[in-house]
């Protein structure tokens, strides 16, 4: 059989395959340059950037949990100016799609950062991290309610030169409402899920394991939640979905695509196997060949009810 097609399309952007990296787990790509051929990836989502540099929380910033980990890095990043100045240069040459994750603590910050990124054609897409607390609002995450989500996405969309992909939090009562609001606000795609709200305490020292007390739960432990929410959103909106959460290998990629994802992001897995992404890509090709599937898009949303 001829080489199956692994290419997918997200918000008008063509990826050579559905395998991309999750924000904050792949830095700006540099560290992985020595482990894998970055040009093989469908895309790279870079660490959340904000208006100003952020040093992040004091350590300890992570703790291991059952089949997962907690993190409270604190959105440490170089800030948008240094990002544009120092990081885009490296990313330009990689031969893979560059998706810039943008975070903000109020509407103005999002708009400021997007404005700074506009015009830089190394960038293929913006992933909007709306799982941040709205400090000048009620302090709740922007993605916690359809109204706030609609507000920030529609305002950003107006000024954004690039396709826009809001990234949704799983910590919501009804993700369908939030997803619908983003779609109506003009989102070109949706990425989900971000980390689950979590915490750990050492029963012997009585100390919390993170200086920030609570953090974000990621890893295989959360995969069933990510798959369920992708499935829910897939049955709610028409725009493409990028599935995230506990993806470790090609089988998890298939599971997310069957649930309705058009592409996926590998996060925590990068910490355990630096080459997990490229391995998954070749395994996916093998998987399709074995089954005589000529196009990976045939998997999307094809989960069979029993």
């Amino acid at each position, binding site marked *: 059989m001829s080489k199956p097609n692994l290419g997918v399309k997200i918000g008008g952007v063509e990826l050579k395959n559905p395998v991309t990296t999750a924000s904050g*787990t792949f830095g700006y790509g540099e560290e992985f340059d020595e482990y894998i051929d970055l040009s093989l990836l469908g895309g790279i989502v870079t660490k959340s950037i904000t208006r100003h540099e952020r040093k992040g929380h004091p350590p300890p910033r992570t703790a291991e949990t059952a089949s997962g980990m907690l993190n409270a890095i604190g959105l440490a990043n170089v800030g948008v100016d240094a990002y544009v100045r120092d990081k885009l240069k490296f990313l330009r040459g990689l031969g893979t799609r560059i998706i810039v994750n943008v975070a903000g603590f109020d509407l103005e910050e999002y708009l400021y950062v997007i404005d700074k990124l506009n015009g830089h054609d190394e960038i293929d897409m913006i992933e909007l991290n709306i799982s941040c607390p709205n400090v000048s609002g009620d302090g709740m995450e922007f993605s916690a309610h359809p109204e706030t989500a609609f507000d920030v996405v529609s305002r950003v969309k107006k000024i954004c030169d690039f396709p826009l992909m809001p990234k949704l939090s799983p910590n919501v009562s009804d993700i369908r409402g939030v997803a619908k609001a983003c779609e109506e606000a003009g989102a070109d795609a949706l990425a989900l899920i971000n980390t689950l709200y979590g915490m750990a305490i050492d029963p012997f020292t009585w100390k919390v394991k993170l200086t920030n007390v609570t953090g974000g739960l990621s890893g295989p*432990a959360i995969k069933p939640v990510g798959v369920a929410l992708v499935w829910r959103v897939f049955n709610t909106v028409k725009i493409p979905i990028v599935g995230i959460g506990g993806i470790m290998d090609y089988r998890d990629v298939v599971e997310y695509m069957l649930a309705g994802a058009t592409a996926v992001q590998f996060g925590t897995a990068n*910490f355990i196997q630096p080459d997990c992404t490229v391995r998954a890509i070749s395994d996916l090709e093998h998987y399709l060949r074995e089954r005589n599937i000529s196009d990976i898009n045939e998997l999307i949303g094809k989960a069979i009810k029993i």
Partner: protein
Amino acid sequence: MRIELPLKSFPKPGTFLHIKPTREGSDPLLRRAFSIYDYHEADGAVEVLYKVFGRGSYILSRVPVGEKLDTLGPLGNGFEIPDPARKLIMVGGGVGIPPVYLLAKCCLREKIPATQITFLCGFSDRTDLVLSERVAKLNVTTEISTDDGSHGYHGYVSELLREKLAAGLAGDKTNIYACGPEGMLAAVKRVALEHKATCYLSLESIMPCGVGTCLGCVVKKAGEERYHRVCREGPVFDANEVEL
């Protein structure tokens, strides 16, 4: 534990291996870092020396000989071989001994005279004395301290270090290389400062990725509100660079 990890050249002391303890299932999830303890030029095998703390090290302790281990590395930024003119004091606390041992071995290999080197091993009590076995075989001046006095010098190894420096070993002509628990390293740093000795510390930290991307392993930079990645900029730092 001996790991067949064909390394062509002698590994840099202070660098570490990132080992996946779990072979089935996803719990525990993360790799564990272990300093390179020894290297056998004959077959290029690397050794790590560890103590059973929690789940990861326990699982490793039950891996049958001959099993394949999923290992990354050598990783990190190790110790630089010092200027032969300097006096060298190695300070290892418990499972902090391995990287400093390899440094001492390396120095001798680089023809630095054994008389230049003093090796201080610190333990809380006598239970872990085995960790200093190979140090004794180096034929450098070696002293052992135990917090409870059950063996050798009675007190913290940092106090033993202070006495050494007080008794002759001119601080400003001395390099100190230390690895051990954070409290010990902080004390060693203080003593080194008092005596104007140059001091390098190999730090520990919880290391999810080990390659510099998760930003989980950071330590605060001295003086400024910024952080070093222990796995990438470290684990070895000039004592003046970090705040403990």
